[in-house]
């Protein structure tokens, strides 16, 4: 869930990074010196799918900043925004640069859905060269604190007793929180409504007002409200319980059938253009490994509610394929019958 709220909250960090990048960009004169590795691409450009201050933009800038602070990167990689169509623009751009090893991009699981949903998608993630998976945003289910259910399973029971009355709030119907809910509706045979809001704040007020009963998102979206006793967590999409929320059972513990869905719902990784040379892929894998080993990176992921998840090669391809297979029929159904 890309909450405006959380974007803004992240702005302070991002702005600092922006300045660093801007000053760095003017200081370095284009010559590349990335730790002296052989096969290191020159003039690397980092493509992101959001404008300045957006989620992927901040992610990329923070990554570059940490790499520079830790001397893993000695020059600077400019960040280039291709914000069209939530990833479609960035994918199309990379597809048009086959074999050009100096272009990389920060992708998210949304890119997979975006390509499936658009009838005219100019490119999809499998057209590109996935390089490495970096992080996984744990999704949680939140509900009003005074709701008459304490787990997702109990919510489903309630929805069964009152068909078509319970409401889940969230963003676009193409977001993973809706798709995973559709899958649960399918496997459990229970239906509830989905109420879309563009921004995060109205979703939370919808729950506080009683217009909606649940919302699936990242923990930082709800943490303040939970602390204040206005919302509660009723489930975690993860293989283990969350630190600080040990009493909240995971979705698997609640015996909720996720069907085809893998346990990773929202992830962030790095991809390059089609036909990227194997030695370049290896260079980037090594580079990002070094970044993920730094303390600054671990600290950053923690504040963002992200979990480190370093996956490369065939495992990465499998993870992308599994996610894609799970979402494809759901998206197709939705496009056919809006």
């Amino acid at each position, binding site marked *: 869930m890309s909450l405006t*709220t959380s974007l803004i909250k992240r702005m302070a960090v991002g702005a600092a990074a922006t*300045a660093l990048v801007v000053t760095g960009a003017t200081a370095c004169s284009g010559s590349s010196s990335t730790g002296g590795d052989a096969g290191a691409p020159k003039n690397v450009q980092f493509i992101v799918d959001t404008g*300045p201050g957006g989620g992927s933009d901040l992610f990329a800038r923070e990554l570059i900043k940490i790499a520079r602070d830790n001397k893993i990167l000695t020059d600077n990689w400019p960040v280039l*925004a291709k914000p069209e169509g939530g990833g479609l623009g960035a994918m199309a751009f990379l597809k048009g640069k086959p074999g050009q090893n100096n272009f990389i991009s920060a992708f998210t699981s949304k890119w997979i859905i975006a390509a499936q949903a658009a009838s005219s998608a100019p490119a999809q993630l499998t057209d590109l060269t996935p390089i490495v998976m970096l992080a996984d945003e744990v999704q949680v289910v939140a509900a009003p604190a005074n709701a008459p259910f304490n787990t997702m399973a109990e919510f489903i029971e309630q929805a069964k007793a009152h068909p078509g009355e319970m409401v889940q709030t969230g963003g676009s119907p193409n977001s993973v929180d809706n798709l995973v809910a559709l899958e649960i509706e399918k496997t459990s045979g229970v239906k509830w409504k989905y109420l879309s809001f563009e*921004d995060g*704040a109205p979703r*939370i007020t*919808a729950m506080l007002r009683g217009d909606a009963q649940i919302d699936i998102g990242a923990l930082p979206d709800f943490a*303040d409200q939970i602390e204040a006793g206005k919302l509660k967590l009723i489930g975690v999409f993860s293989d283990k319980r969350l630190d600080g929320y040990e009493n909240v059972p995971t979705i698997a513990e609640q015996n909720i059938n996720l069907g085809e869905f893998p346990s990773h719902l929202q992830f962030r990784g790095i991809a390059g253009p089609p036909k990227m040379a194997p030695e370049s892929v290896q260079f980037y894998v090594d580079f990002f490994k070094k970044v993920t080993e730094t303390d600054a990176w671990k600290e950053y992921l923690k504040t963002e509610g992200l979990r480190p998840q370093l996956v490369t090669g065939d495992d990465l391809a499998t993870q992308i394929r599994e996610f894609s297979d799970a979402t494809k029929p759901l998206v197709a159904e939705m496009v056919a019958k*809006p």
Partner: protein
Amino acid sequence: MNALENLLEGLAQAMTPQNLLWVLIGVTLGTIVGILPGLGNPAAVLAVLLPLTLKLPPTTGLIMMAGLYHGAKFAGSTTAILLNIPTETSSVVLCYDGHKLARQGRAGPAMGMSAISGFIASTIGVIALTFLAPIVAQFAVAFGPPEFAALMVFGLLLVITVTGKSPVKGFISMAVGLLLSTVGVDLFSGTERFTFGNINLFDGVEFLVLTLGMFAVSEVLINLEHVRGKSLLEIPKGIRNLLPNKQDLKECRGAIAQGSITGFIVGAVPGGGSTIASFVSYTLQKNMSRNRHKFGKGAMEGVAAPEAANNSEVGGAMVPLLSLGLPGSASTAVMLAALLLFGVQPGPRLFETNPEIVWPVIASLYLGNFALIILNLPLIPLWVRLLKIPYWVLYPSILVLAVVGAYSVRGSIFDIYMLIFFSLLGYAFRKLGIPPTPLLMAFVLGPEAENAIRQSLILSDNSLMIFVQRPISAIVLGLAVLVIVWAIYSRRRPGALPPTKADIQQDDDMDELTEAQQREAGEIIKVDVFAPEPSDEAREDGRVTPSTHSPER
């Protein structure tokens, strides 16, 4: 009163000579950066300049940021009034009356009014926030899709009142605006609407690109047809003519009060925001004003009301931010970033747990506004001199700024093509005498209304009763009915004849100038730089003597 004591204490903490120096630096920097369209958006200004404040002590950093924020906002008003270029969305409304005033030689008073009404409104906003926050917060939570839908329907009805005397042309403009607003991927079904398979259109039409084309560039195109060797506007001499006079302030009292209240309420509603606040307040004022015939032709109230709303919206938006931890609109980005500098996560418990932080934050935002007024009122004469720039420098500069602005909003080359398209559309509108205002208002309010209505219908299983069952939406809809009745009544009033064709021809309400009239008006307004200054009498009533001789270049 405990809250008041806290506020005063916060102000006292904030008022040190060092802080005052930084707030002035902040206002100056914010104004400079804010002049650029695209960057004029206060959130973007902050993102660019925030690192500067990180090196300062927290309170000082905050205060400087407040200065930056207000500076950027004022810069947006300045370019809208002087050059017809809105650099941020909430200043778009100033292109109507603010720029018209500038063309009548009253740029200075319009800018002064913008600063003064903004200052008064943010004072009211801060006071209301101090005393009413808990009540308003409950109201904000109660304001859901049906309530918002009712408010937007109300807003759209008000748009009809700015269509001028030719309702058909007004409706054409409104329909085009609604059509443009539907472009993109639908929020509820994920379906593409009018994207023609082009991924650049998936996220819809960018509002700022639309306004830059419809106003700034198309204005340059129109003016190029008949301007030779003249400066764009004339500037009266003497500080007396550069600030609002007593008469202006008296006229605008009601507008400032109305704008402050409207802005605060709209700001407090999650999903509101300053653009909607300024639009609603402008249209409300047009309906309430005794000088409504002047609206669109240079009404001071048309500057005062939206600018008041624009500024008190900040106070309103801080209510859900501080008491619920939810930002009401983008303007609260400043506050969020500021609180983060203190290492504080704004949240539902902030008032209880960190009162020592909340109040200096509110106080510093207020101080930023104060600094703006003491710094920029004396500088208005300097700003106004921008208009002395001859057209052959100014027009290319406007075009460059518009292109840079259109590009920098999303960093998209495609938006430059869109800018060209909307410039031609705006040009065609002016040639055909179609007012562009309803288009822009429909573009802003239309999607909000659509989303809220569809959200309501999802909740009610397609029963329309939801709009009258919930009290707040029933009240707002009741007001909307009153507006319709009043509009019909005032048109059919005894003595008021239905508009004749000649009326419509002569109707220069809201940019509806025919070509010939435009030319005529252009000659009246535009004065040769080399020509003698217009007489005092001419200036007094806002008219300007036409130049008798103008050297062709």
